[in-house]
């Protein structure tokens, strides 16, 4: 009788220990393969972890950024492919919003709303948000798009199968299929320039210094100082993409 009892309790113990071990292993596996939760974190302490600031108050809508980007990165001239573009928002007195971006702002803007109807107007430059929890990286079926160790979202052009799932997954409309290369394409924060300690083309040419990039981990960097002194916001914060492109003076009309 006593023996039987010990046997039963031992069996029970083994059962629950086994279950616990199984659950732990399964959990570890899920954790390591990031099947359900998806985020990238900085791995190498010695490398920068890039963030970007765009100061809407400084943007004059000249379109130099969009123009230089196309030249620097071999993006076709047609107005359907942009790594970088500028939008003009005009909030009218009646509350409606007029948004335009003719040829991505490359040729500049002409205000089409009569002055007397304008409540306020401003420019919003757009580019890849280099999210830390990038929906585009998460969905790529072959892992052709990935985070560089510096937190820059890149694409392996020799690996992309052109399924376009990443284009669908980007909430900011920053991706397109390159019509010549036939693979996904997007802003690389001019990674080829960053590696040579050169600023991205769009930042190099911006005449008002409305764009800034820097190391988010360096508390003394200009970028971090700017973030400390200004109230900034990311686009679509509700989507929790971990966007690292921070806008100063972002108006609520912008998406």
């Amino acid at each position, binding site marked *: 009788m006593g023996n039987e009892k010990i046997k039963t309790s031992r069996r029970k113990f083994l059962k629950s220990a086994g279950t616990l071990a199984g659950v732990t292993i399964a959990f570890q596996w899920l954790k390591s*393969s990031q099947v359900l939760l998806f985020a990238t974190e900085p791995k190498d302490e010695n490398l920068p972890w890039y963030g970007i600031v765009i100061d809407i108050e400084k943007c004059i809508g000249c379109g130099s950024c969009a123009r230089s980007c196309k030249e620097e990165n071999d993006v076709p001239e047609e107005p359907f492919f942009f790594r970088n573009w500028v939008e003009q928002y005009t909030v009218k007195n009646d509350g409606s919003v007029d948004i335009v*971006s003719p040829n991505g702002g490359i040729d500049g803007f002409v205000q089409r709303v009569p002055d007397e109807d304008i409540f306020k107007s401003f420019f919003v430059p757009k580019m890849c948000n280099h999210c830390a929890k990038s929906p585009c990286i998460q969905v790529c079926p072959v892992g052709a798009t990935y985070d560089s160790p510096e937190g820059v979202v890149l694409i392996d052009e020799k690996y992309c199968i052109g*399924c376009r799932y990443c284009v669908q997954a980007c909430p900011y409309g920053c991706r397109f299929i390159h019509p010549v290369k036939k693979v996904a394409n997007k802003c690389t924060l001019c990674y080829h320039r960053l590696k040579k300690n050169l600023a991205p083309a769009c930042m190099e040419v911006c005449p008002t210094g409305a764009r800034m990039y820097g190391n988010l981990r360096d508390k003394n960097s200009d970028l971090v100082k700017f973030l400390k002194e200004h109230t900034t916001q990311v686009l679509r914060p509700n989507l929790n993409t971990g966007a690292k492109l921070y806008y100063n003076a972002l108006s609520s009309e912008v998406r």
Partner: protein
Amino acid sequence: MDPHYQHLYNILAHSQGYIFPNEIDLQWGILIVVYPFITGLVAGAFILASLERVFKVKILKPTYQIALLTALSFLLVATMPLISHLSQPQRAYEIMITPHSSSAMAIFGFVYLWYLMVVLLLEIWFDYRHSMVVWSNEKTGVMKWVYKILTLGVSDISPRTLKWDRKLGYIITVVGIPSAFILHGYVGFIFGSIKANPWWSTPLMPIIFLFSAMVSGISMVMLIYMIISYFRKKTIELNVLDSIGKFLFFVLILDFTLEGLDQIQRIYEAEESFEIIKLLVSSKLYLTLFVSQGLIGTIIPLITLAFLQFYKHQIKLKKTMYFIIGILVLIGVYSMRWNVVIGGQLFSKSFSGFTSFKVGLIGLDGTLMAAFWLLLPFGILAFLLWLLPPWKMVEEDSEE
């Protein structure tokens, strides 16, 4: 000018409001409408077959093998629209060799292979093995060897082995039901998990896809059963149709309820995307959503099916009505796929405007190609029915 650019300039001229410049080029065209339609037919047809086997709905016996072969015919083609829409189709194998664990799409190859190799092929093989052994003994020439090869050399047809065939076939069917659910629920998840797109992003998406899959698969098998009977000059049995019809009626109600719930939730919550979606359904999707999917594909079939449950006269008229319902339901489900896939890409993620979609006739992603992938399974089915005619199968004495 490059025809692709010309096409995009035309689209640009027809866009409304503000759309992000990269959104003018609509990424997923008609082939991606065809893909979930085809996988839906597979899952639906299989579930109908399983109903006969697992739940022992004897009346559906005449449709059992037809349903399985239909599922196989469509499954064999299911990957083709996907592969032909890739910009780099020659790299498609990468999805199997280096799947990205966090990607919903990466699992497709595995779900597909599991379903094809473990579920469908095995079940059909166990089902037909006895007959194939008998046929390989009866036939002469090439066909003798074809059947011999198909038996994979297992020619034992002793009652004990046949009993095992049935048992294993049954187990596979039981495994197959959740597999069919996963196959199509998963297709829904590909869309439902895209948080950037409010028209797609709903946890109900996999379930909606699943039920609409069942609806379409059941209708397709019913139609194919009627067409086969017609060509074989056999009577279409009304009790079979009534039984399928009853099943279709209940699943259609569930499907309609789920989609209704999804929309009601959307309207009541009225999140930031509400205005643009309201515009979308009332303009660009009006015909395909309200008329084609709602009225033609759901309401009319539901009312007719309800009526047919009670109507007992004029057998010929009843059969015609079932046939028409089958077609209407398929049109409805195809429209549903269209509304999801194309509808979800027509509005800008800026929620401030629309692009437009114009499908070309020729090319890898044109209408002709889509029609080809939709028609090819029927060719395969005709071949399979010739190779493995369900009506010539060896009758089992000790049916379980």
